[in-house]
């Protein structure tokens, strides 16, 4: 293949589209002349063909560095903000890293990495460059313990779903996400913003939610995505009333009916849908009928994405999946037939599949296996409940019982707590097997959410 046929981010960033910006809470960068500017101090040439670790303290410079490096570096490894620094040496060795792009160069002087490039704002001017190669994009899995796995993608795989959907109708969207763009879910939105000819508003972990929403409004965000936990937090915050997106997407966790209905009620004119994607399996599908789960006829081959259910878990084969785990002890990413086992467990009810939980997230209740997500979905159906977490608690009688922490919707009369608790239990008894019904329900003010936007499950 000649370099000219390789597709890179810079091919979507010509100066013909005006008014495009990439912004965070502090800085807004115009994308109009981005191809003749550099965040790398003009040192891009030195990074040609290198395996580059992108270790920056903010998303804005990360995104600008991705634009510059794609098509020039041999590979780039995106480090999410919550990466445990103790894992860096192992990741550098596994990915064969020979250059680092950082905003803290002093930290890298004794690192043994040959080339350290400082990413800096404001941008400097630079001559536009030609795409040289298809850069390999390396992302990290978001597991909670041990060294994360390195997952290898190509830009073609990462953007497969975006290209298949075609351009958004109407004016160029202004995208935003509650995710960090160095995670799969956030990167999808960043890539959509680049490919769609639109702008993007980045999140900031240190910003209060109300301030974030004010910024989304000020920049006229039209398209926005996040995990169900992100969205539940927004719905609880009271800030949703000032916000009017056209396109609302959920991914990364199970979107239950309660959160879908909650978003539809909060944003009546918006299209509300949930998407299924993971770092390894790529983008699987989108569900836009307003219902939880997905139609059973999504199985089989649909738009080039093949899906099947084996031993209860969803398996996906498509050109959008990652191509390999990278590293010294890397295991196979797919089975012999090229299917990625998502580890997401589904259950067929009627003509629809429902997500019931993660294979690794099963809790043991008196010898019976229980998915906490299934219990949470039943609890969340109560109209006064905004968010919940089910977990196991040891019991001297049965070994384990289910307990649930529940956040009530804003303004719920505290004197109704007992009545609500009884209603939740009645509802759970009607929908769940008896061992899955919470033995104890505790009302709490907050529930922890991980940096990746997922409900923290310390016991799973």
């Amino acid at each position, binding site marked *: 293949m000649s370099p000219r046929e390789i597709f890179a981010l810079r091919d979507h960033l010509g100066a013909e589209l005006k008014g495009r910006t990439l912004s965070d809470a502090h800085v807004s960068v115009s994308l109009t002349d981005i191809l003749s500017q550099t965040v790398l101090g003009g040192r891009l040439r030195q990074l040609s063909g290198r395996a580059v670790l992108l270790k920056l303290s903010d998303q804005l410079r990360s995104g600008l560095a991705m634009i510059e490096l794609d098509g020039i570096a041999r590979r780039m490894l995106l480090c999410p903000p919550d990466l445990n620094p103790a894992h860096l040496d192992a990741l550098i060795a596994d990915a064969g890293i020979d250059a680092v792009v950082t905003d803290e160069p002093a930290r890298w002087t004794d690192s043994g990495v040959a080339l350290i490039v400082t990413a800096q704002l404001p941008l400097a001017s630079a001559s536009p460059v030609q795409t040289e190669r298809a850069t390999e994009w390396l992302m990290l899995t978001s597991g909670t313990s041990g060294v994360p796995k390195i997952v290898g993608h190509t830009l073609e795989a990462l953007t497969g779903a975006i290209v298949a959907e075609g351009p958004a109708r109407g004016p160029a969207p202004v995208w935003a996400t509650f995710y960090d763009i160095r995670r799969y879910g956030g990167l999808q939105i960043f890539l959509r913003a680049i490919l769609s000819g639109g702008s993007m508003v980045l999140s900031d972990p240190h910003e209060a939610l109300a301030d974030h929403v004010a910024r989304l409004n000020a920049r006229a965000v039209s398209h926005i995505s996040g995990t169900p936990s992100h969205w539940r937090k927004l719905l609880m915050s009271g800030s949703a009333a000032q916000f009017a997106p056209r396109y609302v997407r959920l991914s990364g966790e199970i979107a239950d009916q309660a959160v879908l209905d909650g978003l539809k009620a909060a944003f009546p004119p918006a299209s509300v849908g949930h998407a299924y994607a993971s770092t390894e399996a790529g983008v699987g599908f989108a569900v836009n009928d307003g219902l939880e789960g997905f139609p059973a006829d999504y199985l089989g081959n649909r738009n080039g994405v093949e899906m099947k259910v084996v031993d209860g878990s969803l398996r996906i084969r498509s050109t959008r999946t990652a191509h390999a785990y990278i590293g010294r002890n890397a295991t196979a990413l797919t089975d012999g037939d090229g299917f990625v086992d998502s580890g997401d467990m589904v259950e067929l009810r009627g003509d629809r599949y429902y997500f019931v939980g993660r294979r690794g997230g099963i809790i043991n209740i008196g010898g019976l296996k229980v998915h906490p997500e299934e219990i949470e979905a039943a609890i969340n159906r109560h109209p006064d409940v905004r968010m919940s977490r089910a977990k196991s608690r040891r019991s001297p*009688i*049965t070994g384990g019982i289910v307990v649930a922490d529940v956040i009530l919707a804003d303004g719920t009369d505290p004197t109704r707590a007992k009545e609500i608790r*009884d209603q939740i239990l009645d509802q759970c008894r009607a929908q769940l097997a008896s061992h899955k019904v919470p*033995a104890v329900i*505790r009302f709490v003010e907050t529930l922890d959410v991980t940096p990746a936007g997922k409900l923290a499950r310390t016991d799973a």
Partner: protein
Amino acid sequence: MSVRLKVIEAIKQIAKEQHVTLPELSDELSLHETGFDSLAFAILVARLEDETGVDPFTISEDAAFPATVGDFVRAYENVPA
């Protein structure tokens, strides 16, 4: 509320939730005759732990699970404060 009353209230509440028809509760009634299954007892012990701060069946490793309602109540009454 006395410990005894708390225990009896919790038994009645769980019986209602679990649709168990309790016989009249007396100290001599065997726990088996309450109609509670092990899950109902597990719920009872967990709720009482939240309410009283103690789980007498986990504190002492050799504690035998009580045989009667009276034994059960005394297990909570006899926990050192």
